[in-house]
């Protein structure tokens, strides 16, 4: 009994520490983002609470010696890149996982070559891609070379998510559809896809967030027009001001918003499945 109790304490403390380390940096950053500006620096103590740095991020603070964060275009690039990556990786992930539902020759080789994309260190892949692009005389851009690497990186995640979904997918609903005379294509659209949709959402979320804050691959292959993480990193070279923290808080809130949207979509799609339709009782004859 005592052993169990002490184990419980140990695990409890362990979990608390884990949560602390998980949220600690964010909390510190959150607090420091309310530092007084423009003189206040990125450290404690807080001289005076203010929202100056938030105004600074949005460009509505009075001009000062602190240069505005170069985020406007970078943010646009990151979002479009993440969106495109999400679409392509998810489509490819779903299709590949679908293919893996039946055994085919060389499936093992294909599996590992897909998975390699998320295992190979990003720096190596980025560097290699840059060299290859140079060799072939291809310009490096966030929308070309970097985009390809983002897909290479996120596609395995989408694939694995979908593989897990298909793993517990009951094939008999598809067979029932075929036996009713419905074509395989229509069966996929009307039966398979609606049932796997929550999994597709998860795959999309993975692909989007991984691409959105991707750093090493973009560093080497993104060319001169930088994405958000690179733009942020670029400001470190000069001097760190709390405006970075303010932006960090905002972008984290953005991530939470994505999660919330994901959660809502998930609930809606499962509720659509679960909800007892009420008041729709129609006269049969």
């Amino acid at each position: 009994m005592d052993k169990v109790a002490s184990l419980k304490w140990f695990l409890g403390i362990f979990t608390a520490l884990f949560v602390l380390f998980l949220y600690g940096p964010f909390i510190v950053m959150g607090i420091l983002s309310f530092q007084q500006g423009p003189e206040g620096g990125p450290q404690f103590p807080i001289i005076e609470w203010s929202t100056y740095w938030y105004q600074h991020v949005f460009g509505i603070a009075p001009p000062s010696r602190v240069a505005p964060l170069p985020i406007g275009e970078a943010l646009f690039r990151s979002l479009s890149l993440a969106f495109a990556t999400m679409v392509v990786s998810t489509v490819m992930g779903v299709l590949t996982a679908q293919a893996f539902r039946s055994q085919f020759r060389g499936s093992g080789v294909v599996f590992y070559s897909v998975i390699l994309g998320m295992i190979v260190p990003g720096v190596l892949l980025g560097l290699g891609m840059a060299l290859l692009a140079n060799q072939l005389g291809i310009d490096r851009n966030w929308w070309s070379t970097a985009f390809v690497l983002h897909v290479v990186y996120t596609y395995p995640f989408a694939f694995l998510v979908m593989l897990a979904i298909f793993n517990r997918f009951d094939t008999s609903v598809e067979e029932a559809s075929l036996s009713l005379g419905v074509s395989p294509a229509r069966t996929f659209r009307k039966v398979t896809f609606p049932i796997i949709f929550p999994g597709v959402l998860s795959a999309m979320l993975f692909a989007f967030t991984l691409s959105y804050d991707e750093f090493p691959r973009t560093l080497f292959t993104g060319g001169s027009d930088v994405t958000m993480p690179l733009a942020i990193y670029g400001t470190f070279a000069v001097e760190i001001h709390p405006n970075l923290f303010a932006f960090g808080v905002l972008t984290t809130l953005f991530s939470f918003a994505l999660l919330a949207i994901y959660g809502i979509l998930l609930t809606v799609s499962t509720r659509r499945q679960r909800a007892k339709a009420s008041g729709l009782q129609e006269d049969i004859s």
Partner: protein
Amino acid sequence: MTQFDLELKQITKIYPGGTLAVEAFDLQVEKGEFLSFVGPSGCGKTTTLRMIAGLEDITSGELYIRGVNNTHIKAEKRPTATIFQNYAIYPHMTVRQNIEFGLKIRNLSASEIRQKTGNMIDLLDLGSVADAREHSLSGGQKQRVALARGLITEPEILLLDEPLGALDANLRRAIQDELKLLQRQLNITFVFVTHAQSEALGMGDRIVVMNAGRVEQIGKSEDIYFNPQTPFVSRFIGKNLLFEGKISGANGGIASIETPHGVLKAGMAGAGKISKGQQGLLSVPSEYIQFGKSKASGVNAITGHVKQANFVLNTVIIYMTLANGDVVKIDTHVDKVKGQDLNPGTVLNCYWSDKQGRIMLNETNNSGGA
């Protein structure tokens, strides 16, 4: 030439790994027949059903549906509908949407679809749950939704893969009768797969007993029950007493077999295949066993003592130890043992007419089912 609704010619299934699942299956089914496939798991009954549905490739042989060769026709082009054991109800659709799903691809007007769906909902008494989804349905309702969804496409053959397996015993009994009634009413050929002999024998106009990928016997329910043709069927179906021994005579349809309990006689199963000296098996349905001593001629008699007797409702299961230590199980009606002392150790005399029971060859290595 009669046109069969379903005809299997030497249908064989070998899986890519080399496993032989179904071997040279021949079958002819007439329109409106209720056919049951029964056998232990892995006997090939579901594989055969799936080959008829087009969900499994046919390795060799030919499959005809209403005279049309369907051997290489894809599942969605076959005039069959399949009901699965887990019902495979679409969770993202209402009962009504499930039922009309198969109609949507046919060239029907919206009002025709409504009409047909409504009729089917009425037929299977699903009106009260027409707008509900799978999770709020009971097992019996799910089963009826699956049936409605399959039947609405007006299949020529309805294939049912253990459709009662997931229901509790009482419901199963009730649905058996409903299903049989529905089949009569619609006059559609049903092929019904089950591992439960009570379902197979209770519903099938004809029953196919399968074992290890092969057909053991095809026949009407009473034939299968009282006239098993193979040792496997004797063991798998019914409540037969089995006696092994050497055939000591075979003449004019009557054979005798030398067992440790004396020479016993019975009709031969599988005409003309039995001859003296071969290993044989006598199978006697429990129902034929009489208790006490008989002085009549033409009876087989055995004596032993009661090991144990268990009463289950209106039946009694008697385990009787014979002189050589063998134990036979007699599963019979309580009326048959009225006045009989069944306390353990009591001497028990049994007899039955030598016209009852069947003697067959016992040379195949069939593993007995439960």
